[in-house]
């Protein structure tokens, strides 16, 4: 309804960041070096290979879920024809743009399974297969080659989607052709479907199958909820970053932060709802093959990680983000975003690491090396993608609506 307030489109040069490419290259180099360091440490340290694989999976999944969050955001904005979000959509597009590379980085954990290395995925261990009747039942699905095919499909689908949407969005900056938007609106619905299926099975394959005896139908939704929280937290932080640099100053306003904050709040609640559903039903059903998974996460210091998630990922941010005042205050919102991004990492850590150190939570040097290594590659890619392209979809037909957006 805000179309009455006419706001002129921002100038291209003002909203196009420059000088990020160099920083991006630096980050890539730094990341690559740390990745090498991680691998070296993996070879050198005792039990290092197992930790390397776990740490690598943690790092890659963290950034893949960020990318997936970005993709989800982009798709949904087109699906529902949202107007308010146009000014932050480009940031999400760039996040999604990391998916092809991050997807490729999954290979180091997939390939070992082809050779019977069960340090990460125990189901890949031939001894395990020989001994476990349950695993033999699941072997048609849980085997290295099929996993490779599936991961290729996931990454392929993501790459296709990212390319299709990002390319058109960028092209529109030049042409202003509304048919691009129409094209994407039409394709958004089937794309969301493909997104949902790939994300679900990605979650099953890469995370749930770490404990191959365990299963939960809601698991895909759980990972999705976490990704969405991480996405909105990242969007807030990125928007603040570029507001600070100047590209988004006066474009992303308190109103947009308010809305991002609302969505962040909503998905914090959604994550809590899904996590509670999964936990409560398993707790109540009390079937050993299911409860074992939560039991593992209640052993030793894992208990505190679980509690940290309960409070840090749900209760505290829920209360903290309840107030309208917080959502409209940049620094308060940013603090919660930082916390939630961190909590998303803890969440994934909590999903992945108990198979490595069942006796209690532990962090190794390799974990840091993996995380900062993959993070360097991720950031490097991100900066280079952002560099030289307008951070605002300049000629998006709904840009005016977004610029003039007011929370009523």
């Amino acid at each position, binding site marked *: 309804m805000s179309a009455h307030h006419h706001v002129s489109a921002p100038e291209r040069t003002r909203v196009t960041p420059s000088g990020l490419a160099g920083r991006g290259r630096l980050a890539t180099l730094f990341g690559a070096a740390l990745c090498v360091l991680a691998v070296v440490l993996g070879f050198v340290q005792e039990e290092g290979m197992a930790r390397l694989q776990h740490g690598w999976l943690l790092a890659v999944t963290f950034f893949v879920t960020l990318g997936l969050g970005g993709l989800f955001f982009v798709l949904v904005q087109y699906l529902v024809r949202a107007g308010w979000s146009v000014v932050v959509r480009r940031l999400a597009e760039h996040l999604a743009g990391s998916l092809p590379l991050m997807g490729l980085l999954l290979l180091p954990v997939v390939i070992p399974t082809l050779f019977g290395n069960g340090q990460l995925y125990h189901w890949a261990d031939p001894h395990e297969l020989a001994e476990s009747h349950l695993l033999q039942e699941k072997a048609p699905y849980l085997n290295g080659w099929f996993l490779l095919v599936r991961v290729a499909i996931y990454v392929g689908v993501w790459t296709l989607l990212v390319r299709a949407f990002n390319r058109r969005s960028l092209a529109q900056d030049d042409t202003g052709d509304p048919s691009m938007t129409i094209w994407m609106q039409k394709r958004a619905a089937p794309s969301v479907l493909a997104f949902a299926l790939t994300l679900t099975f990605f979650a099953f394959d890469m995370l749930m199958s770490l404990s191959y005896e365990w299963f939960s139908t809601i698991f895909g939704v759980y990972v999705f909820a976490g990704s969405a929280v991480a996405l909105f937290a990242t969007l807030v932080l990125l928007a603040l970053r570029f507001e600070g640099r100047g590209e988004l100053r006066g474009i992303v306003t308190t109103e947009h932060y308010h809305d991002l904050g609302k969505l962040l709040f909503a998905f914090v609640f959604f994550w809590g709802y899904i996590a509670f559903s999964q936990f409560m039903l398993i707790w109540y059903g009390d079937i050993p093959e299911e409860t074992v998974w939560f039991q593992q996460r209640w052993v030793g210091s894992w208990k505190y990680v679980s509690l940290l998630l309960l409070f840090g990922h749900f209760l505290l941010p829920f209360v903290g983000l309840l107030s309208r005042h917080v959502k409209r205050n940049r620094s308060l919102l940013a603090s919660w975003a930082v916390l939630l991004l961190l909590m998303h990492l803890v969440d994934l850590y909590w999903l992945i690491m108990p198979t490595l150190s069942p006796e209690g939570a532990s962090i190794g040097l390799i974990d840091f090396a993996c995380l900062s290594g993959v993070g360097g590659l991720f950031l490097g890619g991100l900066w280079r993608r952002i560099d030289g392209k307008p951070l605002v979809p300049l000629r*998006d037909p709904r840009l005016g609506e977004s610029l003039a957006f007011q929370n009523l």
Partner: protein
Amino acid sequence: MVITAATEPKRAHVAAPVVDVLSDDPTQRPPLMTGENDFTSITDDVCGIAEREATPRAWYIAFAASVTGMTVMFAMLGYLIFNGVGVWGNNQPVAWGWPIVNFVFWVGIGHAGTLISAILFLFRQGWRTSINRFAEAMTIFAVCCAGIFPAVHIGRVWMAYYLFPIPNQMEMWPNFRSPLLWDVFAVSAYALTSLMFWYMGMIPDLATLRDRAKGKVRQIAYGIASMGWTGSARQWHRYEKAYLLLAGLATPLVLSVHSVVSFDFAVSQVPGWHTTIFPPYFVAGAIFSGFAMVVTLMIPARQFFGLKHLVTMKHLEIMCKIILATGMMVGYAYAIEFFIAWYGGNPYERFAFINRAMGPYAWAYWTMATCNVLVPQLFWFKKLRTNLWVMMGVCILVNVGMWFERFVITVISLSRDFLPSSWDYFKPTAVDVLTFAGSFGLFFTLFLLFCRYLPMVAMAEVKTVLPQAHAGHGLHAEEPAR
């Protein structure tokens, strides 16, 4: 004693540009309503329905049919209460038969109203204003129908107070660890909150009816119901804050209600019931069936009461899209359930799902899958989702499918319990069938009364989405409405 300071300006009738409400053109937002609407016309159009002097014959015919159905239901309930639950088909091993199926079915239908009122409100979806009153009313009537089944399922309805923590001679308390008790709290909280939400939304419109009422009875009735509302800015201020708060409260509530309903099944260890995706899957299914019901009722209602310019094809199309989306979610849950049943490796779980698709109830399962997953696929095509007949057909089938979904979950899993010697094939009795059929009578009776005497469209809210409602509109009067 009136001083006229300025002459009343005549309504400017600018020739309305022909706009396609279904346009996908991203460069402009199609209007939410068609034709020339202003505050006066909306008031007249909506109030006109409730103020009509002579009730149309068609209304009487529909009302008579509904009351007959309702009477049949109450007769069946009386028979049931007099004779006991044995008059139903419920027995071992299917101890939860049609009553629970019907309960979940009606509660599910009752989800769309609050969703439209609350969640779409939070999402700033202006189009909801045309249909939210209608959908909220539907919610409340559906919850009324839903509440009947668990209430009579306890067999001795006069003992229903055991469900609440009321001190009693038994000196015992309800078991709060039971999901059935959670249900009691969830459904009661939902019914009460929805009722308050609905009623609060109606207060300004009831005031409109009060101020226009001709007869003394109506003046008194609407006068009491509207509580002396004067539409003052201070009242609106608190009213809007309250509306926002209620929307914020109703949103998690609506999620929780069907989640809790799903807990009834999912906390157990029955194969086919104990699965973690049940809460969101049930919620999606509830929205799915609720929207289908709204569309089913809306199509004839807008035609019959002349509301086509307020509830446009666009409204119906959006609802069809939501039906498609939630239908896909339900289909997703079906698929994941099947996959995990295999992946989990538990032979009982595997059997439960193979039995669904290939056992004696395969007909029910495939009816469900067809109606819920295949049929809504028609809505991918814009031609079909904007065709009233297709829409009507799909929505009715969706509700058939959703009834069967509950049937599949409840009956199939129970009919094949862990002890093969007690396996049985569930057959409903005539009482089962007539009670369920009659519950539609209750639903439509309430609904027809609502259509006849209450504001069917939230006038005050619709007015807020008119361009004239915004400050500065006068300055841009020459601009086409957007």
